[in-house]
C-alpha cells in the first residue's frame, strides 16, 4: 500500500445501523428490569469499584445498549459484585445479574 502519511479518521458517531439489536434484546430477556433504567447514575455514584476510579457501570451498559462492545469485557472484570448498585437503584434494576449476564454475553460473542 502506498504511504499516504495519514489514515482515514474513524467516525465519532455510533453507527446504529450496524448494530445488532438481537444482542441487546437477548440481554433484556435475561434481565427484564434492565429496560427500566433511567440513567440516574445512583449505581455509579455508590459503586465500590468506581471509588477507585475508572469503572463506570452505567456507561458500560449504555455502550452495550448501542452494541459498542469494544473493551467492555475487560472493563467489567473490575466489578467486585458487592451489590451496592442494585441496592440503591430507584428503578429496581437487577444490576448484579446484569453484570454477570453482560460478562457472559461479551465472553460468548467475541
Amino acid at each position, binding site marked *: 500500500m502506498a504511504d499516504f502519511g495519514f489514515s482515514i479518521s474513524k467516525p465519532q458517531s455510533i453507527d446504529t445501523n450496524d448494530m445488532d439489536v438481537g444482542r441487546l434484546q437477548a440481554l433484556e430477556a435475561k434481565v427484564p428490569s434492565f429496560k427500566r433504567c*433511567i440513567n440516574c*447514575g445512583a449505581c*455509579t455514584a*455508590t459503586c465500590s469499584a468506581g471509588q477507585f476510579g475508572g469503572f463506570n457501570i452505567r456507561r458500560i451498559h449504555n455502550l452495550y445498549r448501542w452494541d459498542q462492545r469494544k473493551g467492555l469485557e475487560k472493563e467489567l472484570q473490575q466489578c467486585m459484585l458487592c451489590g451496592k448498585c442494585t441496592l440503591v437503584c430507584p428503578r429496581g434494576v437487577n444490576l448484579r445479574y446484569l453484570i454477570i449476564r453482560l460478562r457472559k454475553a461479551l465472553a460468548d460473542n467475541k
Partner: protein
Amino acid sequence: MKEREKPVHGDDNPKPREVKRRLKSTKRISRRKRLEFEEVELPLQVAIIGGGVAGMEAASVLTEHRCPVILFEARPELGVNVKNKYKIFPDFSDAGRLVETMTKAMDHPLITVNKDTEIVEIIREPDAYTLLDNKGVPHTVPAVLLASGYEPFDAKRKEELGFGIYEGVINSLQLEDMLREHKVLNSLGEDPRRIVFLQCVGSRDEKVGNHYCSKICCITAVKQAIEVKRQLPDTEVYVFYMDLRLWGQGYEELYREAQEQYSVRFVRGRISEAASTFDGRVQIKSEDTLLGQPLKMVTDLLVLMIGMEASPGTQKLGKTCGLEGPYGFVRSKSPHLEDNLSDKPGFFLAGTCKRPMHIAEAVNDGRAAALEIIKYLRK
C-alpha cells in the same frame, strides 16, 4: 366500608324526610342557626373529612349554596400541610396568609368545625352515611367528602442519605422553617457555604415502593434554591435531579431565573450516599451522568426533597371504604369526568387523598367536588 343492612334508627328504607328528621336529631346545627337560615335550600348536611385546603374550599363553596357542612380535622389546626410552608411557588406568595384567609371563611354559621377529631369508621346506610369519630360520636349525613390528604415522606427510610443521622441532612419542610425564620444555618450554626438539594426522595423509587412522581418537588426545589440565594447570596446551591419536570405556568421561567440570576447549578445525577466529614459537614456521592463521571461533594446542608405519600387517614379510610387505590391513595370513579366521584353514591373525593397535587390544584379540586355534591343533593 361496613354496609349496614338494618339502619341504626329502625326503618329499613328511610325516606328523605326521615333522613332530614334524623339529621335534626343529631343536632349538629343549632336552633338559632336554623332559624337564621330558614330560606335554606339544601338543609341536608355534608360531612367533610379533612380540613386541608381542599376540604376548606369545598366547605366554602357548599355554604355559598347554603348547604350546612360539618368538617372534621384530625389535627388541632386547619390547613397544616400548607401552613408548614413559607412561601409558595410560583409567585412567592405567603402560604400562611393563604391558609389564614381560608380558615377565616370557616367561621361561618353553616359550618361546624370539629378539630382534633378523627373519623375512625364509616358505615354505609341506605341513602346516608354514618361517621363514627374517635370520641365515639356518630354523625349521619347524606353525603361525605373525603379530603384526608397526604403526608410527607419519611426520609429515614432512605438511610443511606443520612436523614436523622447527620445534622446536616434536612428535609424540604425543615428548610421551609429555616427560610421563614431567616435562619438557614449549617449544623454548627454558621452560614452555609454550600447547599445541595436532592430530588426524588421517596418518589420514583421502587425500593420504597413508590413508583410515582410527586410532581411538586422539582419546582419546590427551584423555589427554595431561589429563596436561599435571596437570603444568602454567597452560598453555592446545587440541585441534583434525575429528571426536571417543570410543567406548570411560570415554572420553566423560574428554573431559568434560578440558573441565570441566582447561579443555581443543576446536576443530572442521583445522590446515593451521604457521610459525615470531620468538620460536621456532609459528603455526598453522585454521578454527573451527562459527563459519565462519579463525583464527591462536601456540603453544609443536604436538603432532601421529600415526596408525598397518602396520609395515614387516607390509607385507613380508603381501605375501610373499599376505595383503596395504588400506593394507599384513594381511587376515584374515573380520572376525567368523574374524578370527584367514588363508586359509592354520595361519597365524594377531593385533593391529595387521590394523588399528589399542588395547592391550586387541590383547591380547585375541592371546589369541583363541592359542585358535584350540590348536584347530587339536588337530585
